[in-house]
């Protein structure tokens, strides 16, 4: 038995897999003790949890602690002369015309930033020895100041971590109650501002996470849920609790990560090597490219957005995110242009049609007016939508443009579909992938409603809507693997790379990775992938090149692979140009057992009985289209668009010409018309 638990801002979701059966439940999030919400949701299932082998846990608690500035009182220890690096940042700003621009507020003020007499050079040689005596004095001062967590980041510690390690020792002795973390434990790459920020972020959420995870384990046991606990990371894998307490920053984006894992696993089971995962919820939509069932990650990641965010170098699932979802508000800007999002009506008051006091037109209101979602069966019929309120809100928004509510509704949906398509193109076309070779996996409450329009716009031939599309991210937890990423800056001319030395450097990284995997209890079924980041001498951006099976030909093979990749990505190669290695990276995966999915039963009987008017093109007027209950569709059933396929928490909108077939595990496999 596997249990997945996901604590979001509004709702806590749980998913339980027993054999080939997966069930879901939901309860309100309980901010004071998040574990209560989990217990509530599990109780709703009324299942005996004794047989639980593994509990997977994802949470927004960590990112929220940072965004709401509710982390620990944190200090920073740096190399002498460099405590201000953290405040200075990269001396940049985003909006070129905004002369009153703000800068991100650092999490540690200058008074809590301490300097230690020590200095390492870029090649790892010691320039100034570590001054233990002064370090002890600083550690005592930190202990006496009421500090809860301390981050240590010394210059060039990625090349030689000894001084940082010694500082941690001193802190352990002199300030044992203060949580501590050092940059070399998190990331071994150059760029001091980004590395310092990563270390500070980790320290900032450390004490809170330790408490949170302690409470979680205790509460899980109290509801009879035993077994080991694994935490969802931002990198598309999970890790054990002990490591989570040391690297809580890795838990930052567990939600998008779970969605990507779910899509990658589905792609593997369906043998689709090239897919885009498209997750559209209430406030945002996310698109992720998944090739060969592998999840791509990216760094740096800016917590709180690129403009004003704090950088973290820990890998986060590489996705394009846009601030538009079902709850996004449509409005006329001061110049009279029709815009949608990024502001959202949220869960409260929600779209106008919820009847909870919202008066602004949202995407959901537009979908309702066009008949693409149903007033009576929304949320499994638990919530009745009010068409009149939707019409009034949409009509009011569009009045100055001289549009009828239906015209405006179609316009809102077209604008949103275009925005979604631009997000999907960011991860496909802009990465050199032809959308005609890609399958779109659509999930999230609003994903299936809009997926066919998005796919059509980009010329994608096929869309897959998995079973329980609105809960698909939770399914991702149940099928995740343990994953650890490690990296090491390794600057060298490629034509002078010593393969033995390269091997040693990789072996050190692998040692770290194997240690991390064994802590989680995984010893068999592991897989380690090596890549070298290379560039033409003089370029800044690198490309990651696989470093497997070099067998004594490291220089030639890496060079060839790099040239090929450069040509594939940028369209040209420069055979005579010298190359340079910059970073070594490894990804270590510990495979976990996965639930199987039950074959579908059900019949077409009772399906397609209802007919509802739906508008696809406003000028064509409404078309009367059949409405199918998804659970009534058995494997092999075929539905030709236009049609709607409704399930409790979502609706799949088939446009004219789309052809949907249900596969053996209940996926809607739709050929785009």
């Amino acid at each position, binding site marked *: 038995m596997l249990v997945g638990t996901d604590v979001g801002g509004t709702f806590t979701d749980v998913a339980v897999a027993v054999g080939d059966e997966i069930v879901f439940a939901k309860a309100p999030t309980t901010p004071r003790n998040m574990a209560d919400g989990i217990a509530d949701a599990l109780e709703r299932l009324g299942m005996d949890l004794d047989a639980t082998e593994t509990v997977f846990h994802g949470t927004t608690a960590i990112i929220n602690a940072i965004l709401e500035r509710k982390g620990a009182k944190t200090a920073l220890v740096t190399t002498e*002369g*460099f*405590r*201000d*690096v953290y*405040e*200075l940042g*990269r*001396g*940049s*700003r*985003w*909006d*070129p*015309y*905004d*002369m*009153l621009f703000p*800068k991100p507020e650092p999490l540690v*003020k*200058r*008074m809590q930033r301490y300097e230690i007499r020590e200095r390492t*050079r*870029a090649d790892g040689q010691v320039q100034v020895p570590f001054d233990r005596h002064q370090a002890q004095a600083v550690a005592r001062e930190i202990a006496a100041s009421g500090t809860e967590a301390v981050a240590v980041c010394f*210059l*060039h510690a990625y090349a030689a971590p000894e001084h940082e390690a010694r500082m941690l020792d001193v802190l352990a002795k002199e300030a044992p109650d203060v949580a501590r973390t050092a940059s070399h434990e998190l990331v071994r790459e*150059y*760029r001091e*501002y980004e590395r310092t920020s990563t270390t500070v972020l980790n320290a900032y959420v450390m004490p809170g996470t330790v408490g949170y995870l302690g409470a979680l384990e205790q509460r899980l046991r109290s509801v009879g849920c035993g077994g080991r606990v694994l935490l969802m990371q931002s990198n598309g894998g999970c890790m054990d609790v002990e490591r989570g307490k040391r690297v809580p920053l890795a838990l930052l984006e567990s939600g998008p990560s779970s969605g990507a894992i779910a899509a990658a696993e589905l792609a593997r089971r369906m043998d689709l090597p090239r897919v885009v995962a498209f997750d559209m919820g209430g406030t945002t939509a996310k698109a992720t490219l998944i090739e060969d069932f592998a999840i791509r990650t990216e760094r740096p990641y800016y917590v709180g957005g690129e403009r004003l965010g704090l950088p973290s170098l820990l890998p986060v699932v590489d996705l394009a995110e846009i601030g538009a979802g079902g709850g996004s508000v449509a409005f006329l800007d*001061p*110049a*009279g*242009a*029709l*815009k949608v999002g990024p502001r959202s009506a949220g869960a409260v008051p929600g779209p106008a049609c919820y009847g909870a006091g919202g008066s602004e037109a949202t995407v959901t209101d537009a979908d309702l007016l066009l008949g693409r979602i149903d007033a009576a069966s929304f949320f499994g019929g638990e919530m009745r939508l009010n068409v009149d309120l939707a019409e009034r809100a949409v009509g009011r928004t569009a009045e100055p*443009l*001289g*549009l009828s509510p239906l*015209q405006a509704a*179609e*316009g809102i949906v*077209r*604008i949103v579909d*275009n*925005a979604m398509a*631009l997000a999907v*193109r960011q991860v496909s*076309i802009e990465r050199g992938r032809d959308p005609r070779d890609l399958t779109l996996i659509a999930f999230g409450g609003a994903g299936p409603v809009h997926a066919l329009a998005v796919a059509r716009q980009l010329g994608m031939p096929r869309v897959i809507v998995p079973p329980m599309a609105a809960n698909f991210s939770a399914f991702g937890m149940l099928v995740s693997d343990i994953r650890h990423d490690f990296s090491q800056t390794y600057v060298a001319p490629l034509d002078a790379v010593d393969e033995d030395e390269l091997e040693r450097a990789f072996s050190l990284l692998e040692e770290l990775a194997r240690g991390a995997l064994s802590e989680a209890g995984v010893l068999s079924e592991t897989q380690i992938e090596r890549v070298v980041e290379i560039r*033409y001498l*003089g*370029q*800044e*951006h690198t490309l990651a090149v696989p470093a497997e099976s070099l067998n004594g030909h490291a220089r030639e093979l890496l060079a060839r692979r790099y040239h090929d990749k450069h040509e594939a*990505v*940028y*369209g*040209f190669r*420069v055979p005579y*140009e010298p190359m340079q290695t910059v970073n070594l990276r490894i990804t270590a995966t510990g495979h976990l057992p996965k639930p199987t999915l039950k074959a579908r039963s059900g019949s077409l009987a009772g399906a397609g009985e209802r007919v509802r008017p739906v508008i696809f093109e*406003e000028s064509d007027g409404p078309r009367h289209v059949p409405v199918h209950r998804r659970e009534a569709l058995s494997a092999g059933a075929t539905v030709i668009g236009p049609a709607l396929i409704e399930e409790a928490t979502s609706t799949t909108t088939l446009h004219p010409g789309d052809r949907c077939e249900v596969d053996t595990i209940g996926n809607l496999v739709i050929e785009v018309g």
Partner: protein
Amino acid sequence: MAVQAYLDAVTTEVISHTLTAYTDEMALALERAAYSPMIRDVRDYCAAIVDLEGRTLGYNTGGLPTHYSDIGEHILDGIEIYGEDGFEPGDAVMMNHAYTCGQHANNVEIYTPIFFDRQLVAFAATRAHWQDIGGITANRPTYATSDAIQEGLQVRSVKVFRAGKPIDDVLRLIRYNLRQPDVSLGDLRAQIAACRVGERRFCELLEKYSLDTVHAATETVWDQSEALARAAVEEIPDGVYEAESFLDDDGYHPDRIVPIHVRVEVSGPKMTIDLSGMADQVTGPINSRTHVPALIAFKALTTPDRAPDVGCFRPVTVVVPEGKLINAVPPAAMGSWSWPFPTIIDTFFRALADVMPGQVAAGNCGMPYGAGFFYGQHPTTGRQFVSLSLLPVGWGGRPSENGVTSGGMILGYVRDCPVEVTETFYPLLVDRLMVRPDSGGAGRFRGGLGIECVFHCEAQMFNNAEIGRTKCAPWGLFGGKPGAVSENVLQHPDGSQEVIRSGSINRLLPSGTRLTVRTGGGGGYGNPSLREPERVLEDVLAGYVSREAAEAEYCVALTPDGSDIDWDHTSRLRRDDG
């Protein structure tokens, strides 16, 4: 009518977002494949789709404003030379001619024609700062040149590719005029690759919407921008507003200051920016031929949040007579063409500060250069190296907040180079990098702080210093005090010190030399005696403001141990201050 309006509103929104996404994709292609740090790290480039009249239809997000306003105009020069029927698919044109573009030769524009249905419909264009374009020095500091020909290869609308094939004769001519031909020609390739992306995408757009629809949609967006800009000007009371400042020197004579004068006339929804009162063109290379600084300043006050387009600038008229500093004629040198812009822009804000008090910050330190420019031969690799550190500066106090410490350049998005990267690639060791106490001008809202950075040369190398605002301090507003001016000090291997000034270029520094760069702070906003004593104490405890300055500038006295406010003494000081 209704249906038409409906189509327009939605289609317009879709097309304008799509054009931005396409030019962003061009920018990404350029940045990823470029060689020059000025492109890939500093982001000194732009990407655009330009129509046959030279108007920008789409422009990449975050593109440098200095490139925006006239990228299209230079394509008109190529159309004039080759004729509208003189292009074929696969062509690429290179353009950097100083007296046509009004900029330094390093800013190289590469553009390609876009054909749809065998018809020339638009151009895909990029402009990027090449690290080297030949000429007298690798970069183009002030004091280096006195005419544009010294500043590098001048290429006026010359095809480098024809029908998809490189024109080898031309490329060979370029190659042997450059110091780092592989780097610069790598940038050229990257720019062409970016243009090819733009060509493909624009055609995709035309397959979905007709050219007329695309034009109609962009016209609509321009009209919307114009309406917003006019409304913003309308908010400013009618009248004539003026301000003056000066540049420290003309880039040739260290003691000759260069007056800047801005006259702004507001009349209903229209604004005229008259720069007739500024200095005539000068001997040094700080001349240009452009309206860029006036346009940046105008947009910053009227439509700062909106993506730049033709409409944003319609309500403004810029007046600069021929022969002035920013409307220079041959043989003016333009190597440091943008050098005066921050001061011109700042002076414009100062002119309008009284009537736009909530929207204007105090003076800014200007260009984040200082003397952090080193080049020479690397002792271990034997290769030439060029290290350019843009050192961040303090920005002026804002209407309700302190000024930003460590902001970038006023002209847009740039990033400084990390210490760890500098030390990995160049024979330099950085001794320290810290905020510069007391550099922010005192004010109710304090100016942002400059920084202090000490470079230690571990090998013999050359240094170029570009130093501004050492005499014209970043001013305060509404009773705020000026920020500290910048300062660059050499410490010779024997320990003796020397302040270096403008004009110090190509200077050979022996191994063991140390250079301290102190960048200036921003001016203060509002009377410093109105700053809450608690905030002054906070600044003293953090080390941003010295105890002495707290007393002298802010009239805040501290207790003997410095840990708290001496309230009695403070109220006496503030009473005496009136």
